[in-house]
């Protein structure tokens, strides 16, 4: 074992990493849904479908929560939900989006869906399922649980 060996190994590792990047980029170009580079959070991605849920900011979500006439849906998985959620929210993780159909008889009721924060897409997935199930007043609170707790709002 000499210092020379370490440098040689490190050079091989660096070459391997560059090779991996090249292969990863090449494979991405072949995908039907390539990953955008640079990365964009789900909330910042342009939507290409019509009739999709709207977006509310923290202020909008807080106002709706205080008014008390909006159903909050927590799209995170149950273990996260149990650790804390927006008071009154119900848990509807992506795995159970089929339940969106049976959620509520009132399709006009205002619904706000959230997940962990700007980098999760579960809120959008669940919100889209709600829209597909006929709900007409669905918004995504993109800042999610992160923004809610950082603002010191009730949990």
């Amino acid at each position: 074992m000499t210092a020379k060996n370490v440098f040689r190994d490190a050079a091989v590792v660096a070459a391997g990493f560059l090779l991996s990047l090249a292969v990863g980029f090449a494979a991405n170009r072949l995908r039907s849904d390539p990953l955008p580079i640079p990365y964009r959070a789900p909330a910042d991605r342009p939507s290409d479908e019509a009739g999709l849920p709207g977006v509310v900011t923290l202020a909008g979500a807080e106002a709706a929560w205080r008014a008390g006439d909006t159903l909050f849906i927590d799209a995170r998985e149950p273990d996260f939900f149990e650790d804390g959620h927006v008071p009154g929210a119900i848990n509807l993780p992506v795995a159970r989006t089929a339940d969106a159909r049976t959620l509520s008889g009132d399709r006009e009721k205002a619904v706000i869906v959230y997940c962990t924060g700007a980098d999760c897409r579960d809120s959008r997935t669940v919100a889209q399922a709600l829209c597909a199930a006929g709900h007409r007043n669905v918004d995504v609170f993109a800042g999610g649980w992160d923004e809610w707790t950082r603002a010191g709002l009730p949990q």
Partner: protein
Amino acid sequence: MIARGILAAVFIVAGVLKLPDPTAFAEGIAGFRLLPAWAVGPLALGMPVFELLTGFVLLGNRFRSAGALAAIGLSLAFALLYAWALARGLDVRCSCFGGAGLLRVSNPVGLLRALALLALAAWVYRRENFSD
């Protein structure tokens, strides 16, 4: 030999599970809020391939020592990332084994797992270079 096999298997499994959904993995990386947006995409695309490559190289002969060095680097990076996330109190999934990875970063088992992987990689590297 067994240690090397385990190490290789961990990286191959981790790579294979991440490969099919780079978008989910990118969201996982972004959730840590450590890297700038321009770095997230390339890392999400390159990392699974690099993990696979590391795993297969560990099983072969030619670049085995370099594979062990890469395994040390990767597991050290995972351990540091984990420790950082724990210290910051981040509540995200680890994304270690694909987007649907079950472990949450707030669970210290993940840090122990990363440290165990680091120890295993260091041991394999030492055997490759110090024994005859």
